[in-house]
């Protein structure tokens, strides 16, 4: 149990650092697609946080939320990628 609470603290710090790095790329990213990648990584970090919380508390209340976040992230990035492709004006 002690091992697990220590691990939870370490994991929280690492995930927070990863989220900050992704946010920096999100703010700085030169193009829309870079920002899209940053948002994907941010979603992965959120998923990881939920799973670590479940593992530390030994419950599985968030599991449906994890699956839903995966699916929503997929739909979002595909939609934005299509928008980028078609958003440029046709040149002929």
């Amino acid at each position, binding site marked *: *149990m002690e*091992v*697990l609470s*220590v*691990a*939870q603290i*370490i*994991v929280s710090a*690492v*995930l927070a*650092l*990863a*989220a*900050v*790095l*992704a946010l*920096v*790329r999100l703010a700085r990213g030169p*193009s829309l*697609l*870079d920002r*899209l*990648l*940053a948002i*994907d*990584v941010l979603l*992965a*970090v959120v*998923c*990881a946080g939920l*799973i*670590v919380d*479940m*593992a530390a508390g*030994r419950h*599985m209340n968030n*599991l449906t939320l*994890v*699956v839903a976040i*995966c*699916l929503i*992230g*997929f739909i979002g*990035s*595909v939609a934005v*990628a*299509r928008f*980028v*492709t078609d958003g*440029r004006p*046709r*040149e*002929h």
Partner: protein
Amino acid sequence: MNTDLILDIITAVCLITGALMSLAAGIGLLRFPDLLSRMHAATKPQVFGLLLLLTGLGLQLGSWAAVPLLLIAWLFQLLTVPASAHMVGRAGYRTKHLRREILSVDDLDAVVEAAAEEEPEAEITAGDAAAESAAAEPGPAEADAAASAAGPVRKDQDNSGTRKD
């Protein structure tokens, strides 16, 4: 008692490694030079990191009834991540969000060349000036020559090769 401790240690290793995947993705997003290499870093935590985290969670839950749910969560991610990464990469290639000078191999070169060679036939119907500059499109040296010959028109034709299909 002892097995609990071992399970806890394995879980802790899985969770920390999975979190380090996210950290690696964050560092990669910040440090790598262009979209394609950033994609390489960004897709690591979404599949392998999630697998490690779910393994840790499964070990900690300790019941076989939870395993199918965890497997479903991972399988959804395994199916959707390559599709979305493919879409992002395709959009990035078409809108030229890549740096050619650090690219070692471009497998689409032949396809793009073929499309650029077919292009003039389609352009003749559109107009003579457009066809003239589309014929000069493939190489950078020829493109420079075309830029001096027909400057404003050449800019319109810049992406016609990659956007054809």
